[in-house]
């Protein structure tokens, strides 16, 4: 019994020591900014920035090879948040600020083909074959991945309608 306890303890300690030393030698230096920037991006991997997914874009931004404004669905708010995090100068003119836009489906044009549903990275489109689809506004991130897949052009990006829930009084003009 003592031999069993002793041998297992020594074995575990020895393996732990070896792994600890190996961890020192094989450590991968990762940039902590990459994870933080990736958390700010939409995370839908829509590919509009030209990088392989949001993690690729985050790595490029952290390395300085992409501007903070490279995420089209993120728009102005995401660009400002990233620029603040990275301490970058932001050229706001480069961001086409049309305000947040979400996908909407024109009911009279939708034929219920389900093609947009398969291409939505956030599962924001609801529908069944030969039934009119609908976009869940709470889930849509406005990446516009679905737009090109609609055969009848029923899907369009439209500005978010202002409702009482998120209307904010405009700031007074500076004197």
């Amino acid at each position, binding site marked *: 019994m003592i*031999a069993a306890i002793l041998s*297992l303890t020594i074995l575990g300690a020895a393996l732990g020591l*070896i792994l600890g030393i190996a961890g020192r030698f094989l450590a991968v230096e990762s940039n902590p900014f990459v994870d933080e920037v990736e958390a700010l991006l939409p995370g839908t991997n829509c590919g509009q920035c030209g990088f392989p997914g949001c993690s690729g874009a985050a790595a490029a931004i952290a390395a300085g090879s992409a501007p903070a404004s490279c995420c089209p669905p993120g728009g102005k708010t995401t660009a400002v948040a990233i620029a603040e995090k990275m301490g970058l100068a932001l050229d706001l003119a480069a961001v086409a600020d049309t305000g947040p836009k979400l996908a909407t489906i024109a009911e009279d044009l939708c034929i219920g083909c389900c093609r947009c549903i398969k291409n939505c990275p956030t599962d924001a489109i609801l529908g069944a074959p030969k039934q009119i689809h609908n976009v869940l506004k709470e889930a849509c991130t406005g990446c516009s991945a679905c737009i090109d897949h609609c055969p009848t052009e029923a899907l369009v990006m439209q500005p978010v309608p202002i409702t009482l829930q998120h209307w904010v009084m405009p700031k007074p003009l500076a004197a």
Partner: protein
Amino acid sequence: MSELILLLISTALVNNVVLIKFLGLCPSMGVSKSMDSALGMGMATTFVITLAAGASWMLEHWLLVPYELGFLRILTFILVIAAVVQFTEMFVKKTSPGLYRSLGIYLPLITTNCAVLGVALLNVQQGFSFFKSLAYGFGSALGFTLVLMIFAGLRERIALARVPVAFNGTPIAFITISLLALAFMGFSGLNI
């Protein structure tokens, strides 16, 4: 020497670990969608099985038998296998981030790959010498990699073929691997 080569061939083909002994089926179903990740998984598993076979021989002959601790066999083997897998994971993460990403969850899951523990236990059961254990482990891993590669190649072709709707996806993969197992039974007639 010829004995070792014979053992290598017989474990890789005649007593194939996946198709004849039915060990390690989860990774062979899970990581066989593309040739690249199949090769990566095969190489990582080869590394782990060979190292684990050697380490388990040392444990068996220098610790478990002299101190009569045979009841701790599975526990200690799993401990060593887990450590080797952890080391492999660090190594792959350092040397090839792309492979690390494509293997995903299956890399740490090599720990629970029954082929690894199975080979270590079969080594003990058959009372092999150290070098024979290594050859047996390496041969089994070679057979595992071979099957994974063949199966991934078949699945890549099946993905392009028109499969009846009822068989589409996983069912046709199961049918394919069972036909592959039938084909590998032909090796049991091999006279070497």
